[in-house]
C-alpha cells in the first residue's frame, strides 16, 4: 500500500533509532516529549516504538482522544436522546461501548430497544434521515478538527436538501485549546508538575488546521513542535527532529508530515467549519475540567439542525471516581501504571475512566499492547 508500507520499513526504523541514540546519548539531558494525539499513542504501543528509544527519552501521552475527553454527562445526554420515541441515533463505532452513568451505554440502550445505528461517515447519517422521513435522525458528533469538516458538510447537505428530521448533537473540540490547557496547568500543585520539553503535533488535525496554529506555542512557551505523520517511521523521524531542536536550543514548528500538511491546512475544510459552527464560551473536558473557547456549537442560522436546541435535554455533570488518575494521566503528569485501578478494576472490558474507554487512550493502549513490561518489573 503506497504511502503506508514505506513508513513501516524495518531498515529505516533501525537507522533512525541509531541516529536518535547517537544524538540523544551524549547530551546528558532527559527528553520528555508529549505526543498529543491518541492515534500516535496507539501507534507507539502497537509498534513498540519505545523499545527503539534510549532510556533518556520519555514519551508522555497527551489528551488527544475525543472519546476520552468527552464528559460522561454529554454521553448520558446522547443515550437519553437515543431512547426517545421516534429517534434514530447515528453514531461512529467508537462511542458505542463507552460506559455512561449508572452502567448505561449506547450498546446497552440498543439492546433495550433504542434505535441506534453505527455509521462510518456523516453522509450515512444524512441518508438515514432521507430514508426515514417519519423519524428524527440525530447524529452524535464527536472529534477534534479532523472530524469537524465532515459534520459541517453533512449539516449543509441536509439544509440544501430541505430535511426537517435531521440534527446533530455536537461535541466537537479544539486542539490548540487543549495544548494550552496542558501548558497552563493551573492545578499543577494538585497533579504534579508537568515538565514537557516538546510536542509531537497531531497528523490529521494538522492536515485541516495547518502548521500555523502551533507557532504560538513554540514562541510563547519556547517548546519545539514536530508535526508527525501516523506511521512508526514518521513518529521516529519526528522524535529525531525534536531531539535535534532541543540539542540546538531551537523552539520551532517543524513539519515532518510534509506530504499531507501545509502551513495553511485545508482552506476549504476550514471555511466549511466556520460557515456552520461557532465557539462555545465554555466546555467541560473529562479529566481537564472547564476550558474556555475550546469547543464548537452550531450557529444560529443552523439552529434547526442543532439537537441541543431541538430537544430539551439537560446536561448533568457527573463526578469521576476518586481513585481514578485520568486527570493526571491526560495531562501527562502520571502514567497508567501509577493508577491503583489500572489492570485491576479498570480494564478495556470494564473501563472506569476515560483513558481506558477508547482504544486510543493511554491506559487502553498500554494495557492492550504493552502491559508485559509491567510484569517484567
Amino acid at each position, binding site marked *: 500500500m503506497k504511502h503506508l508500507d514505506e513508513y513501516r520499513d524495518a531498515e529505516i526504523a533501525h537507522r533512525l*533509532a541509531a541516529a536518535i541514540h547517537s544524538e540523544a546519548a551524549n547530551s546528558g539531558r532527559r527528553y520528555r516529549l508529549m505526543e498529543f494525539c491518541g492515534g500516535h499513542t496507539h501507534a507507539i*504501543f*502497537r*509498534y*513498540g*516504538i519505545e523499545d527503539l528509544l534510549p532510556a533518556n527519552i520519555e514519551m508522555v501521552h497527551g489528551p488527544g482522544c475525543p472519546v476520552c475527553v468527552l464528559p460522561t454527562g454529554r454521553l448520558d445526554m446522547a443515550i437519553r436522546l437515543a431512547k426517545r420515541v421516534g429517534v434514530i441515533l447515528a453514531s461512529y463505532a467508537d462511542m458505542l461501548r463507552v460506559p455512561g452513568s449508572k452502567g448505561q451505554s449506547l450498546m446497552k440502550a440498543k439492546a433495550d430497544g433504542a434505535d441506534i445505528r453505527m455509521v462510518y461517515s456523516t453522509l450515512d447519517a444524512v441518508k438515514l434521515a432521507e430514508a426515514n422521513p417519519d423519524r428524527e435522525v440525530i447524529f452524535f458528533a464527536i472529534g477534534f478538527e479532523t472530524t469537524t469538516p465532515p459534520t459541517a458538510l453533512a449539516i449543509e447537505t441536509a439544509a440544501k436538501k430541505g430535511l426537517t428530521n435531521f440534527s446533530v448533537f455536537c461535541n466537537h473540540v479544539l486542539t490548540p485549546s487543549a495544548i494550552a490547557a496542558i501548558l497552563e496547568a493551573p492545578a499543577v500543585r494538585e497533579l504534579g508538575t508537568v515538565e514537557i520539553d516538546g510536542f509531537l503535533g497531531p497528523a490529521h488535525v494538522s492536515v485541516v488546521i495547518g502548521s500555523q496554529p502551533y507557532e504560538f506555542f513554540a514562541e510563547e512557551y519556547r517548546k519545539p513542535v514536530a508535526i508527525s505523520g501516523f506511521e512508526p517511521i514518521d513518529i521516529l523521524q519526528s522524535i529525531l527532529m525534536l531531539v535535534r531542536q532541543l540539542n540546538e536550543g531551537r523552539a520551532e514548528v517543524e513539519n515532518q508530515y510534509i506530504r499531507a500538511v501545509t502551513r495553511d491546512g485545508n482552506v476549504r475544510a476550514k471555511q466549511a467549519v466556520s460557515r456552520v459552527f461557532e465557539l462555545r464560551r465554555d466546555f467541560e473536558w473529562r479529566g481537564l475540567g472547564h476550558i474556555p473557547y475550546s469547543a464548537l456549537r452550531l450557529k444560529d442560522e443552523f439552529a434547526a439542525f442543532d439537537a441541543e436546541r431541538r430537544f430539551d435535554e439537560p446536561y448533568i455533570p457527573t463526578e469521576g471516581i476518586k481513585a481514578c488518575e485520568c486527570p493526571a494521566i491526560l495531562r501527562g503528569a502520571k502514567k497508567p501504571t501509577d493508577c491503583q485501578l489500572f489492570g485491576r478494576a479498570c480494564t478495556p*472490558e470494564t473501563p472506569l475512566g476515560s483513558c481506558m474507554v477508547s482504544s486510543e487512550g493511554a491506559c487502553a493502549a498500554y494495557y492492550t499492547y504493552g502491559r508485559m513490561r509491567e510484569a517484567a518489573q
Partner: protein
Amino acid sequence: MNITSRPTRLAARRLDLAAGRVDLTHGAGGRAMQQLIEEIFRPAFDNPILARGDDQAAFDVAAGRMVMSTDCFVVSPLFFPGGDIGSLAVHGTVNDVAMSGARPLYLSAGFVIEEGFPLADLQRIAMSMGEAARAAGVAVVTGDTKVVERGKADRLFVNTAGIGVVPAGVEISGGRARPGDAILISGTMGDHGVAIMAQRAGLEFETTIVSDSAPLNGLVADMVAAVPTIRVLRDPTRGGLAATLNEICHQSGVGMRLDEAAIPIKSEVLGACELLGLDALNVANEGKLTAIVPATDAARLLSVMRAHPLGRDATMIGEVIADPARFVRMATRIGGERIVDWLAGEQLPRIC
C-alpha cells in the same frame, strides 16, 4: 380399481422448491416435515445410513479413541463469497474433529428454520452441505428440523455435531505446547472475516476476498502421518489467531514470541482491516490451522503442509517460550515488541 395398488404418496403435491416457503407444518413432525426430509435433505446428503430413514444412525466403530465435537452456526449473511451457512457448518465441525488428529467420519445436522424461509434457499444450503460433506469424505447421517414462528429466529440457524477416530499413537491437545516448540500456520490470516464484513450493510466496500472456508482433515491426515510428534493443532476461527494462541498459552502454561513480518496476510485483508480499524490477528478464519511442533520437526512439517493445496502458504511464525505470565508477545515490523491480546468481545457479531 384396487385401492391397495395405487402408489402411496406422502402428500398430494411435491414441494414447490422454486417459490415455496417453509411454514410451521414443516416442523411439526408430521407428513409435511417428512416431505421436507424426503425432497430436500435426503437427496442432498445422500448416503446409505440416512436412506434407512431411522430416527438414529447406526454404524460400527473402529477400535481406538473416538472424538466428538459440535458447533452452532448463526452466520449472517447466509450466503457469502466462498461459501454459505451450510458449507461452513460442515467445515467447522469437520475441522474441530480433525484438530485432535482424528479422522472425521459422521456428522449430524440440526436446523432451526424461521417460518417463511424460502424453500429454494433451504435446498441450496442443503445441497451445499452435501457437496461439502462429500468433498471432506464424511456423511451427514442423522438430523433434525424445527420451524419457529416468524421473528423467533433470524432465517436459519444450523447445528452440526461430528465424530471421528484418532489414529493410534497420536496425542494432540492444547495443553502440550512446550518452550522451544515451533509455531506454524497453514496460510493467510483474516480472509473469512473480511469476506463476511464486505457483505454487511453499513460497511460497504468492494473486495475480491472470498471466505477460506474449507475442510482441513485431508491436510491434517498428511501432517500427522509424516510428523507424529505434533503437539497442538487448532483452527483460529472466531477471535482469530490471537484468541487461539492465547488459549493455547493458558492451557499449556507457556508464553509465545511471534514475528509480525512472518505472518502472511493478503493485501486486501490488510486494507480492509486498516479501513475498519481492526487487527487481522483478531479476524476469523475458517480454513486455516495452527500447528505447534518440536523445533527439530518444523522444517519437515512445513514441507508436508506446503505440498497440500490448503497449505501452500504455510509458514513458521514464532516459537513457544517459558513465561509465567502467559503472554503472546510479538516482535513488531519495526523491531519493537508488543503483546497480541485476545479481545473481550466480538469485534463484529455473527461472523461464524
